[in-house]
């Protein structure tokens, strides 16, 4: 075969000069293994890493687009100093030294004038460098460390901690029944999707919950297609059947739970007929699902990382869902939902680590109160960060103290509810540093932009469940002068916190220190370029509560949370209608009769990260709202016709994607689109009162046909 043909087909080998190097994709959180095909220092192709236990050699449309994501014309090549007005995009290149000097002196000056708490530290995606950034914030003296997880995943952790004192992971390998609650894995974590399909082909029963008609709901034995925002009522309705029909686990409930009688009495209010009226799920389907879930030999609930907590009753809805785990005795039982201690950014590996100790270099008591602590005291007492949704309010009010500077990594103001309000907040800061791969609309607001590099261009540790670890080295040179986020943090630490001797020892030394209790060393992981299973570690037993109880105030699973009770909040997982809904605000619903749900994943996008990547963007060029054919007909909307998607707060111009993906009465809009930002539709104060989380997934809207299709109305 001629060399030319081999080169064209990108066959690796000495003849073509193409080398396969191991790295990972961090466009989303699935962390799929990547085989990077590299020729003369350039990336010529990507493929999934066959050895990776999570992605098994596959990728999704985002990961497959890696080449255009990395070699993207919008990459930032050097540190930049803003020369024009905020948002103008006018910058001039400066050296790394100058950038670090300016940042160090700017932040130090503000710290001296207004206290370290007036400097906030924020990180968007990804997650791998977060322990380093949190330590930097606290060593600097600021309690105000925020992550995007503070509006995404962490409220599910909070809900589970309120009831169980711990988080819970589905035991998918062993289970006989999967209750998949509002999680469209084929789109959100595509490589994990095969796990469900393969389970179904083993005979595992699948119950799918969610308003959307997905590939999983089509495969499911039962699909509970509920109205957005009513998960809590549905869960209580399932509990009603389970208790009425004596399908609950008496031994577990009697010995290991608190408040069962109050819970039993509360769920009396949710018989199948009433639950049908609230949720829209037929009563007989609810009964069928409750019987299947509760009478299976074992059953696992797959929780969504955010969908169920993105409601104004999010925490309590989520508590109602996971209460079913204890009720049926599936807690930490084989095939149920397991307790697996997490390490290195919420990876359930069961490894002992000093991650929390590493991050919390200064105790909370020695720092000022956190942003959001006045309004969300429970969030701040239970979670290890400030509450991001409160940030724009404090920037504007200056109460209880002024916020003057942000050191940001991958900040995206479009993730906030009422995103324009957060944008105004960033514009008001005295000093804003953003670190990103790309010149994003948020980076354009910064005083200094630092170029970070992709996972292909840096060294990092990645961990997977169950107990798989990879250490990756750069597979291509960095684009321009871009650098690894951790290297940037360490260089800033040298200038800002020279007293932090542990952090200054560097990336590997810090990770060795964190994993010292497990005896894991980075040098050992590095020996396996595609990663390795961490062997010879003690197995994680089931039913650990039988010897150690529950890490809750009562030592039991709490149907009635003592933490909530002491905070003056209803201790039961009560159901409340979304703050905007056809039932709770019927007058508003006359003008805005459709339920708007935003942020459900599309396969080619990840928040607003992929819009600039042509291969991904071409799969869906325009901002589109999903609307059911019945609702489109009633409004005379033609396929792909332009419409206004309107809420009382704002309206955006989008195309109509007429589809049965959404049920009648519900419309679904993807978020973060630069020309049609769904989060401008939502009031910045439309939030869950316990967690502070935005109610992204249930509010009211109207869709109006634009007469002059394609015109600029």
């Amino acid at each position, binding site marked *: *075969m001629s060399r030319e*043909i*081999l080169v*064209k*087909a*990108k*066959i690796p080998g000495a003849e073509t000069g193409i080398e396969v190097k191991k790295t990972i994709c961090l466009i989303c959180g699935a962390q799929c293994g990547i085989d990077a095909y590299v020729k003369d220092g350039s990336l010529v*192709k*990507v*493929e*999934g890493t066959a050895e990776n236990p999570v*992605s098994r*050699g*596959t*990728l*999704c*449309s985002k*990961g*497959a*687009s890696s*080449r*255009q994501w990395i070699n993207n014309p919008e990459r930032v090549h050097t540190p930049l100093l803003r020369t024009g007005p905020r948002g103008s995009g006018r910058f001039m290149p400066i050296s790394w030294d100058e950038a670090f000097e300016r940042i160090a002196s700017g932040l130090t000056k503000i710290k001296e004038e207004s206290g370290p708490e007036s400097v906030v530290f924020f990180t968007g995606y990804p997650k791998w460098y977060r322990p380093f950034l949190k330590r930097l914030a606290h060593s600097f003296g600021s309690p105000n460390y925020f992550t995007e997880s503070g509006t995404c995943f962490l409220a599910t952790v909070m809900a589970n901690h309120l009831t169980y004192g711990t988080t819970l992971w589905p035991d998918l390998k062993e289970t006989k029944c999967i209750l998949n609650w509002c999680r469209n894995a*084929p*789109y959100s974590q*595509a*490589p994990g*999707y*095969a796990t469900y*399909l393969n389970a179904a*082909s083993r*005979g595992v029963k699948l119950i799918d919950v969610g308003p959307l*008609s*997905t*590939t999983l709901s*089509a*495969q499911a034995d039962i699909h509970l*297609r509920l109205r957005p925002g009513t998960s809590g009522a549905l869960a209580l309705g399932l509990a009603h059947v389970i208790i009425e029909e004596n399908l609950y686990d008496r031994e577990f409930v009697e010995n290991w739970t608190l408040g069962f009688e109050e819970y039993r009495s509360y769920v009396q209010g949710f018989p199948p007929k009433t639950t049908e009226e609230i949720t829209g799920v037929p009563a007989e389907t609810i009964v069928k699902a409750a019987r299947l879930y509760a009478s299976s030999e074992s059953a696992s609930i797959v929780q969504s990382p955010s969908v169920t907590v993105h409601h104004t009753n999010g925490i309590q809805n989520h508590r109602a869902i996971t209460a079913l785990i204890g009720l049926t005795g599936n807690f930490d039982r084989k095939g149920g939902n397991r307790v697996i201690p997490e390490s290195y950014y919420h990876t359930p590996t069961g490894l002992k680590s000093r991650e929390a100790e590493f991050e919390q270099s200064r105790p909370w008591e020695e720092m000022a109160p956190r942003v959001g602590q006045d309004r969300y005291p429970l969030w701040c007492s239970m979670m290890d960060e400030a509450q991001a949704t409160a940030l724009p309010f404090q920037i504007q009010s200056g109460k209880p103290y002024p916020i003057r500077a942000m050191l940001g990594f991958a900040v995206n103001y479009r993730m906030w509810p009422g995103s324009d309000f957060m944008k105004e907040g960033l514009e008001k800061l005295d000093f804003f540093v953003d670190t990103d791969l790309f010149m994003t609309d948020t980076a354009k607001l910064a005083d200094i932009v630092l170029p970070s590099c992709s996972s292909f261009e840096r060294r990092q540790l990645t961990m997977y469940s169950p107990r798989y670890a990879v250490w990756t080295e750069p597979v291509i040179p960095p684009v321009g002068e871009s650098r690894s986020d951790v290297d940037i943090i360490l260089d800033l630490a040298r200038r800002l916190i020279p007293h932090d001797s542990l952090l200054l020892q560097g990336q590997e030394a810090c990770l060795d220190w964190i994993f010292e209790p497990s005896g894991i060393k980075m040098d050992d992981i590095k020996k396996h370029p595609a990663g390795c299973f961490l062997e010879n570690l003690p197995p994680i037993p089931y039913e650990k509560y039988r010897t150690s109880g529950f890490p809750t105030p009562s030592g039991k699973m709490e149907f009635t949370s003592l933490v909530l009770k002491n905070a003056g909040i209803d201790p039961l997982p009560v159901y409340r209608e979304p703050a905007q809904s056809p039932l709770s605000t019927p007058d508003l619903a006359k003008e805005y009769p459709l339920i708007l749900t935003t942020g459900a994943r599309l*396969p*080619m996008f990840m928040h607003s990260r992929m819009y600039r990547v*042509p*291969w*991904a963007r*071409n*799969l869906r060029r325009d901002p589109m709202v999903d609307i*059911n*054919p*019945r609702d489109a007909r009633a409004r005379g909307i033609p396929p792909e016709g332009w419409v206004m998607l309107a809420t009382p707060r704002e309206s955006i111009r989008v195309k109509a994607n007429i*589809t*049965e*993906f959404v*049920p*009648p009465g519900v419309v679904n809009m993807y978020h973060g689109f630069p020309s049609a930002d769904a989060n401008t539709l939502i009031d910045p104060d439309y939030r869950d009162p316990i967690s502070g989380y935005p109610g992204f997934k249930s509010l009211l809207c109207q869709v109006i046909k634009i007469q002059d299709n394609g015109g600029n109305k």
Partner: protein
Amino acid sequence: MSQYAFSFDVSRCSGCMACVVACQDQNDFVADETVAFRHVTKYEEGECPSARISYFSLACQQCGDAPCIIVCPAGAISRRQEDGTVLVDRDLCVGCHSCELACPFGAPKFPEDGKMAKCDLCVTRRENGMKPACVRVCPAQALDVGPIEELSKKKAEKASIAILKSLIFVSPKEL
């Protein structure tokens, strides 16, 4: 000769379109990022609550009686003896688009140089022990490639096991 072909499991496909992008990455469709040898189509049938949404990922079918071979005036399209793959010799192609008119599947593409290009089942990759890029990438494992006899055998076994499982495990008392 053993005829090679793709197989596609419609029950697994979620319409994620990774196959489309993997094809573009493999074949360097960077000048016009809309060109790919794979096309994913969504189809909806019925109305809520009984609506069904399905997806189909289509590429060149490597037809047994390929109309593109017959109509090509330049004799640029031929069948490879070893595995039945339909190949185009781009040096001979005159860019007349006859194959595009004749093909019932929309397989022939015309990148920026105006000459026909189409899916060749990643013939060079297969000869080097690798699967086609679209098959390798598919997170749902809905795509496969192989001699058609082997693919049919796999499908027959899968269907038989599904039938057996429903008979043995679901309703034992009714047997």
